[in-house]
């Protein structure tokens, strides 16, 4: 039950960003942007080892007062960033992992579409619906 989900390309520009509609969505965009630094840090830390050995799930990137940010990197340096509400304590690590796995699967499905040029914004309805299912339902 994420609050914000973003897909960042290798060159660190967003391919897809979707957040729960609140009054201050820009805050989430900013959070995702700053989390990219943390992601790069984590990647480079493991950089000595072979790329294959590097795990894709990065875990908790950093917590803030209101929410936590989780990260995930693919082998082609496409990053998934997920912002989760801190009050949602029921969310365990495994669940986050499974959410990232679903994201990754949907992303590869998009890649298989020949009409999708890598580097374009993601406009797939299937991807949208999948992300919607993972977002928190705001009453």
């Amino acid at each position: 039950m994420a609050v914000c989900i973003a897909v960042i390309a290798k060159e660190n520009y967003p391919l897809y960003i979707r957040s729960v509609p609140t009054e201050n969505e820009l805050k989430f965009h900013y959070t995702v942007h700053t989390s990219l630094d943390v992601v790069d840090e984590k990647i480079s830390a493991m950089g000595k080892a072979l790329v294959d050995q590097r795990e894709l799930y990065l875990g908790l990137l950093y917590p803030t007062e209101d929410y936590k940010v989780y990260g995930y990197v693919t082998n082609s340096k496409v990053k998934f960033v997920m912002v989760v509400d801190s009050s949602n304590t029921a969310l365990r690590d495994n669940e986050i992992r499974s959410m990232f796995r679903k994201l990754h699967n949907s992303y590869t499905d998009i890649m298989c579409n020949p009409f999708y040029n890598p580097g374009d914004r993601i406009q797939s309805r299937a991807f949208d619906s999948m992300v919607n299912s993972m977002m928190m339902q705001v009453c």
Partner: protein
Amino acid sequence: MEQGPAGGAGGGAASSGGSGGVLLALSESEQQRYSELFSRCCPPPEAAAAGGSSVGELFRASQLPPDTLHQITEVCGAKRVGYFGPAQFYLALKLIAAAQSGFPVRIESIKNELPLPRFPALKADGEAWYGTPAELHPGKFQLPQAALEKNSYKRADEGDKQEAKSPPLSPICSPPASPSTYQRMALTYGYGKSRSGLEQQHGAPYEVRHSAHQQDGPGSYGAKPALACSTLSRSLSVEQEQQDSSSHYSDDPWRITEEQRDYYVNQFKSLQPDLSSFISGSVAKNFFTKSKLPIPELSHIWELSDVDCDGALTLPEFCAAFHLVVARKNGYQLPERLPETLLPEYLQAASLKPIHDCTLFDSYSEALPGAQQSRDFSRAEKPSAEEAPASPALLQDGKKDDKQALQGSAALKTIPKEFQHLTMKTAAQESSALRARPRSRSYSSTSLEDAMKKGEEPPTPPPRPQKSHSRASSLDLNKIFQQNTQAARSGWLPPPPPALPPRPSVSQTEQPSEVELHPQLSRAPAQAEESSPAKKEVVLAQPPSKPARRKLRPEAQGLETPELSPTISGTSALPAAKAHLPAQKQASKQKRAIQTAIRKNKEANAVLARLNSELQQQLKEVHKERIALETQLEQLRPVTVL
């Protein structure tokens, strides 16, 4: 007034009605209508009683609430006698008419003059509709009067709705040139039917059907006006389908008809002759881009139709995608989810037994194979046929070579597909980590590529430890030495060990054969056979990867040519001379002479190359011996000095 053959029955019905001996007063039109309905509901041989199920359907088609229908059944006496005899049937029809006019379901109400009962949702003979005009045989146009009448009632029902719906036609975005005919046809159906009179409406679709190809449709009489209305309703909006209680064949715009399927299959063949294989993503992309739909929509269509998400379209997936494109061009909104009738499993099962149903697109599909769309896509056929080989250009050369060649095109077609899969895979390289779905195709392509790479670069085996040069296996060499007069050095050396020739020498032997083969494409099979015996000698002494290479050679000669041509080292004048010779392309006699000369030169070349390598091996061994001796000397020297 009870008239006609049913008069007696009517009288009997009246008497046996059981409900107080009601005399059913049927007007002539009612008489006809009821008798026709009755004969429809009960099969001719047993004219005694109407089939319960068909009667039930008929009653439901009257769109009365179920409890009313129950009441009617009770009142008309069918419940009591247990079947729908003519009396009960006629009574029931009368009661339906009464109920539809708003009267209570009572015997008394039918004493009045009532209009004919209306069955808006009536289906033809209780069977599935045969949807569009094209399906019907023009020969069966003799509509009985009653059908026309029934149609008039239906039209009264639907006419208002049609009027309401026809304005929305205009906002439908008209797609560009070629499918505009389809839209025009839809519009003519819509406007024509809602505005013109009954006869004209019938006339127009009949002509269309006449001009259409004739199929063996069952063409029941009631079907046609029903069809006309159904075509109309479908062409206007999808919501009208809710008029029909069930999603029958003809209502479903997502159902592929036989002609459409044939057309799609032909298009598939133009892109990919092997029907059981796939069309790769890029080929399909080029093909569907020609339909001039916007890219996001094409992207969505792909998402819907590529069910297994492998980046390629099998035949049923392709048919589904094509159908969605056609639907979109005709103004249908794309669904969020793939309809059941377009699922690959369904389509594959359907392809086994032909379905004689038609949808709206039948009328459009007349034009499809004819003019417009084929113009659009036939342009695609040629360019796509050229484009598909364009990307693996090398393989295409090999393809052309192979038209008469031994190995046949099947193996070759899998290679382009797999190479394209390989490119897909590199675009989506992260897929390998996590995919739950099997991606065997892309995996096999990588292995094939690896195998081919290995074939290209045979590793040198370790040198033989023999110091003596006694060899038994180079008998061929001896033969060649004796035969070949050019090799005056035949008596030069005892047969050296069969070391592996390093790559450049192999390329030397390959290269002349390549060069001579390349300009003489038509002689490819003969060349392959000629070169293969020459190669066999080379092969014997070489590692097992060589046969793999030779096997691949007839398949992918074109592939090797660009790889080998850069390695033209021109180490000897002979290959260069040979390059010139075949390039001249003189008369066939000269060609043959040249070829024999080339063959001999090749053999000599092979021999010399092997000699060279063997001598080099010997040189290495001698060097090693020398080094060993020198070290020994070093070790001994201090002893002597001291």
